[in-house]
């Protein structure tokens, strides 16, 4: 397939989706499914609404802090698990238990323990994303071959040098993949936590759910989508800036 055909098909897909949505929206009415033309207008209104924007920015902050904490805990933990069988045997059972435990189930007790403040959202985000960062880093660390480390040792590399010049570059794609997956879960759990306590974006969603019209609700979904896409794109850019040589290998695109 030529690139022009490819782009045509993609644009056609988006156009068909929007047309179908517009037709369905007009026939069902605003109460059930607002058409994209109305949603676009509301997005413009939303862009001019300083208060709503403030709420949205403020609710992203705890997600980013939680995501950063997840990386700071998960990456070393995963690397330790991948390099040391004893660590792995000790930690793996708990990580694989928590990764399948839906964070929604933990929310009620967290509300009792932490209240419904800023840190509550941070903890929910950490508890949902840290396991994915850990497990992905673990897979990468497991694949580092002993031979590579042996070469370092034969050339007299210190432990720190071996870590910096062998382990870290080999781990990099996995750290990035882990961060990507962790970020997806961080944003998901941010919305979940805020839906429970009705603040931030979750609060806006709940409010919009009470409206007679679904216009605002769909506009908010588009905003959340843009935030998620932008965050993931930003992470990709950051990775490219940190380690440009990996971008060329194409590994990043697939993970």
């Amino acid at each position, binding site marked *: 397939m030529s690139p022009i055909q490819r782009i045509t098909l993609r644009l056609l897909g988006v156009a068909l989706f929007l047309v179908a949505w517009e037709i369905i929206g007009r026939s069902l009415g605003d109460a059930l499914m607002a058409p994209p033309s109305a949603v676009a207008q509301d997005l413009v209104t939303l862009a001019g609404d300083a208060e709503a924007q403030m709420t949205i920015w403020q609710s992203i902050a705890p997600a980013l802090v939680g995501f950063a904490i997840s990386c700071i805990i998960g990456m070393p933990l995963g690397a330790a698990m991948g390099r040391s069988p004893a660590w792995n045997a000790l930690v793996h059972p708990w990580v694989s238990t928590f990764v399948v435990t839906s964070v929604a189930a933990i929310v*009620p007790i967290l509300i009792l323990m932490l209240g419904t403040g800023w840190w509550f959202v941070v903890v929910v985000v950490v508890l949902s994303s840290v396991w994915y960062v850990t497990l992905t880093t673990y897979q990468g660390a497991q694949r580092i071959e002993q031979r590579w480390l042996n070469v370092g040792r034969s050339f007299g590399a210190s432990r720190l040098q071996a870590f910096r010049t062998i382990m870290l570059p080999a781990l990099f794609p996995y750290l990035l993949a882990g961060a990507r997956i962790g970020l997806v879960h961080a*944003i998901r759990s941010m919305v979940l936590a805020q839906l429970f306590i009705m603040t931030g974006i979750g609060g806006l969603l709940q409010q*919009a759910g009470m409206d007679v019209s679904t216009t605002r609700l769909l506009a908010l979904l588009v905003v959340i989508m843009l935030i998620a896409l932008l965050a993931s794109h930003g992470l990709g850019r950051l990775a490219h800036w940190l380690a440009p040589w990996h971008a060329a290998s194409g590994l990043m695109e697939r993970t």
Partner: protein
Amino acid sequence: MTAVLPALSIVFGLLLWELIGLSTPPVVFAPASAAFSFLVQQTINGALPIAIAQSLMTLAAGYLLAAAVALPLGFLMGRVAWVHELLQPVLTAIYAIPPVAFIPFVIIWFGLFTQSRLAIIVLMCFFEMLVITMTGARSIDRRLLDVARSFQAPRRRVWSAVFVPASLPFLFTALRIGFVRAVAGTITAELLLSPANLGKLLLDSAARFNTAGILGIIATVAIIGLIGQRALRWLERRVLRWERA
């Protein structure tokens, strides 16, 4: 030594939970033994088994519904180039939206009860399974198909000898991850819509500051997820004998 360590770690973790629970006031955190006796008591009076059974039935219905559409569609998108190009951008956009954000919308469309619970479970696991299947189907080794073609294998033989064996691994992965998401979807729906089954037990405990109850239900949810995942892994290993080598 590494064989007994996991068991040791679990015992140690439970002991730690017990100790933290004993040293904090019961409204904040309860010990493992209290959570366990809550579960035993709820099993004897019948509430827990009924709640689990009903939760699992909703879960199974939503999960199977999602899988029935996601796996064939994913396969189609993975194997037919123009379908992939046509649907990919829209799919990527919708997939970026956290499924829970659709909850207010789902309530408008389906109300607060069984239907909307099913809708949330489907939303939570559908896209995950679709994307994994699509990626897997795209990466089926071209060379395998070429070999089959050069030996002039008939269509049916290509399916049974190449497509099916090459697809089973990622189909199993999709089913496994989809299941974990479906469990999350079930409990989310039972908490955020009208409380029901396990979600209701959890919220009732929370309303009475009964942390033993809360922790007991969390453990139950974790165990359901673990058992489901282990069962699918076991099935995968039985079916995919050749993968082990």
